[in-house]
């Protein structure tokens, strides 16, 4: 018993304390959060734009050119693996850019944008058509109706799936090691291969991801509850 306990302490020491290794995890977490956060922001911008493009009406009931462009974007991004997109960005399209973090942000932002687009589009379509008609019948323009009536209601609709997308994104950044970035996953992997003790680094990294995502979930839950005020009966 005593022996097993001291073994665990030793493993913990090797994994986190020796040579201030905990700082490496912290740096790794920093990379993970940085890439995730800015990619999420970029994805939200791209996704919202794509959603509006997909919803734009063409002439005589036909699809608009914007709708068409957005659909091609979605097909390409959703039809290829994120790892490949990242590698293509890093080694081909942005090969002259030296900043790996920036490339990762752009790559994940573009990727996430495709999924966010469908979330936003569904959220807007879920708002009752009568709301738009009422706005327009009062003389409000299309844009004003969108801005003051439809979008505030759509935000409420999209919150749960959007939270889901952020969570997926955060975990998906674990592949940035492919292009040489030292995120949390890569650090854990490196330390486990350097120390020949994989248990603590890998489980430790998993626990850190878990805690971050749990905090995100709680935060989103709070936000959602606050936005439900107008639904109280």
């Amino acid at each position, binding site marked *: 018993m005593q022996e097993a306990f001291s073994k665990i302490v030793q493993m913990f020491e090797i994994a986190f304390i020796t040579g201030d290794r905990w700082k490496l995890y912290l740096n790794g977490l920093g990379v993970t959060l940085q890439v995730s956060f800015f990619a999420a922001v970029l994805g939200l911008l791209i996704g919202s734009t794509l959603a509006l493009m997909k919803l734009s009406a063409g002439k005589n*009931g036909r699809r608009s050119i914007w709708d068409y462009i957005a659909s091609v974007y979605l097909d390409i991004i959703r039809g290829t693996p994120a790892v490949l997109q990242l590698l293509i960005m890093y080694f081909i399209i942005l090969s002259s850019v030296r900043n790996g973090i920036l490339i990762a942000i752009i790559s994940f932002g573009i990727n996430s944008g495709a999924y966010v687009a469908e979330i936003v589009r569904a959220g807007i379509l879920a708002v*009752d058509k*009568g*709301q738009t*008609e*009422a*706005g*327009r*019948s*009062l*003389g*409000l*323009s299309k844009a*004003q109706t969108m801005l*003051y*009536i439809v979008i*505030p*209601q759509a935000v*409420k609709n999209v919150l749960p799936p959007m939270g889901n997308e952020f969570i997926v994104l955060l975990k998906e950044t674990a592949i940035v090691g492919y292009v040489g970035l030292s995120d949390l996953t890569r650090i854990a992997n490196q330390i486990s291969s350097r120390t020949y003790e994989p248990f603590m680094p890998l489980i430790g990294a998993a626990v850190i991801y878990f805690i971050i995502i749990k905090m995100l979930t709680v935060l989103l839950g709070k936000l959602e509850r606050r936005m439900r*005020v*107008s*639904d*109280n*009966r």
Partner: protein
Amino acid sequence: MITVKNLYKSFNEEIHVLKGIDYHVEQGEKIVIVGPSGSGKSTFLRCLNLLERPSKGEIWFDGDEITAPKANVNHIREHMGMVFQHFNLFSNLTIINNIMLAPIKLKVMSKAEAYENAMKLLQRVGLAEKKDAYPSQLSGGQKQRIAIVRSLAMNPRVMLFDEPTSALDPEMVGEVLEVMKDLAVSGMTMIVVTHEMGFAREVGTKVLFMDEGLIVEENTPTEFFTNPQSDRLKEFLSKVL
């Protein structure tokens, strides 16, 4: 005030809903449109403020052709209030903000003016104490009364009603009709699509009977109900009265 010339509306070039409507509405008239479902009466009403684009024909409003390609649709709609069957109150806004939104955003009134005007309107329909409630907290009848004053807040020259009491529980129909009667007495020009024959008889200056995309018959309420001319109207009245 409103002139409709040879109005056609079809959907997807297949379903022909309106098949040539000509009509003229004078200032202050209360036109009540009745007819079986699918007769095109709602579509006709929705064409008047261009929520539906007519396929063919002209609509003139106060001397302007609103069906002209370059007509400013948003501006025209500011002067035509519309009340819907399903109320369509903005569910993300409180009652007072529902009423104040359009006047403020369209710069018709200052915030203070819009508030004062909204409160006056709320008092008129006896719902002033609900000003900070959200639509989901109101009954159907209350929602529809708010929807009416929301339109009135823009000081429209004509009010369009699209089956305003059809989605209400029976005991709430009265309170909404009461508000509409008051509005009629105040001189508002009104065009009302409804199944409330009592309202048509009492308030209407003219009653129209629509069937299969055409105005089949038009008369004063008394004549309309006591002396129907066409067989189709006779049949319709025998079913609803």
